[in-house]
């Protein structure tokens, strides 16, 4: 009799360990399978949310792309200076009235440049960003299994004379619509931020081509120790 009881108790305890072990695994391991959802509550409501799918439409998208040939209210781009960087069919050479060029704009432009442009053009704009470095490395390899069909056009240095002399409207257009192998960034960067980047790039170009005479006289004093600047000619 006592043996039977011990046997049953042992079995119960052993069986009771199994769920604990399963729980411990679940707590410590990652899983590819979605969580088991016993109680649904109102966790998954039949409403459609951004970036979810929707069976109502053939393409399954809950976010509907705009109908071809239509313009949403308020999105008609009438001001060609602000929206396209074009004045009287030529590249704008001034900033549009909506953009106030001040320190805040430059700071904003720097932050945005560092997010969207540095992977390719590098922090100082010489076309030597990390993606460029890695792409060059891949191309140097002769094994097709490593190259995997890669090609690469080196991002332009923003300090080339042909580029630093471009009117700001053209620079704005490069960011908006891209140029040759560089894609446009209109979808990723809002309009106002694109102008901020333009302002910052202009400042960056100037900073890399500065002359001691560009500084106000009272600030030149400390400079000879800093070798970044060209000697005045």
């Amino acid at each position, binding site marked *: 009799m006592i043996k039977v009881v011990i046997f049953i108790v042992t079995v119960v305890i052993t069986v*009771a360990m199994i769920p604990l072990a399963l729980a411990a695994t679940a*707590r410590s391991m990652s899983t590819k399978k979605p969580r088991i959802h016993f109680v649904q509550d109102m966790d998954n409501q039949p409403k459609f949310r951004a970036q979810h799918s929707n069976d109502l439409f053939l393409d399954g998208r809950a976010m509907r792309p705009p109908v071809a040939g239509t313009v949403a209210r308020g999105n008609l781009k009438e001001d060609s200076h602000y929206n396209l960087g074009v004045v009287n069919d030529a590249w704008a050479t001034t900033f549009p009235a909506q953009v106030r060029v001040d320190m805040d704009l430059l700071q904003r432009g720097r932050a945005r440049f560092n997010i969207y442009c540095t992977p390719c053009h590098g922090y100082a704009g010489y076309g030597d960003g*990390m993606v460029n470095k890695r792409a060059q490395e891949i191309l140097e390899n002769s094994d097709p299994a490593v190259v995997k069909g890669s090609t690469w*056009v080196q991002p332009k240095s923003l300090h080339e004379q042909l580029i630093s002399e471009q009117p700001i409207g053209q620079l704005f257009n490069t960011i908006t619509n891209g140029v040759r192998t560089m*894609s446009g960034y209109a979808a990723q960067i809002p309009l106002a931020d694109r102008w901020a980047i333009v302002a910052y790039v202009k400042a960056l170009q100037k900073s890399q081509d500065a002359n001691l005479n560009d500084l106000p006289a009272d600030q030149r004093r400390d400079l000879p120790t800093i070798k970044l600047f060209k000697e005045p000619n």
Partner: protein
Amino acid sequence: MPSVGILGAAAPVYAFFLVSYGFSPIATDVGYQPEQPVPYSHRIHVGQLGIDCRYCHNTVEVAAKAAIPPTQTCMNCHTQVYKESINLTALFDSYATGMPVKWKRVHDLPDYAYFNHSAHVNRGVSCVECHGRVDKMEEIKQEKPLNMGWCLDCHRKPQGRVRDPLTVTDLGWRFEDDSAAKAQFKTFEDYSEFWLKHNNISPSQDCSTCHR
């Protein structure tokens, strides 16, 4: 039969322990790491190439959603890099047909709970607080339980969990390594306290904040 009595007494304790241990969100939700249609790696793109989160999740500062990037964002580079890689087949198909890549959702709150990225990111709560070291993940994995108690823990006591909003996407940021911050503040607590005051942060605990 004393042993049966002991078993009987142990059963409720056992059941309670099992439910709180095995059905807590740490067991059921944390660690979810689905296989994605493209073996996209944050470790390569963020950790090695140094691309900022906002290059791809570009709405995170202005909207509730962080937004998974559209195919075009990937093609900024992959029209050239690895353009014959079999790993990228689903991406190229999507580019050719215009149909989005079917990424699997990893972090998913119940639909009755409201969350807003911009409210956190702009106040200096870093991605790392809620998503872990994404820059070291080959595949995205849910690291935090995302249950109500977890949200409230921070809303009750945000001390030590906010910093300069300009550094939120720098997941490896540490006070000890930031010489500019260390020149001004003795400890991380002082530093965090400064940003709490500076940005006037007091996270709300009203039910209607998250259930609207």
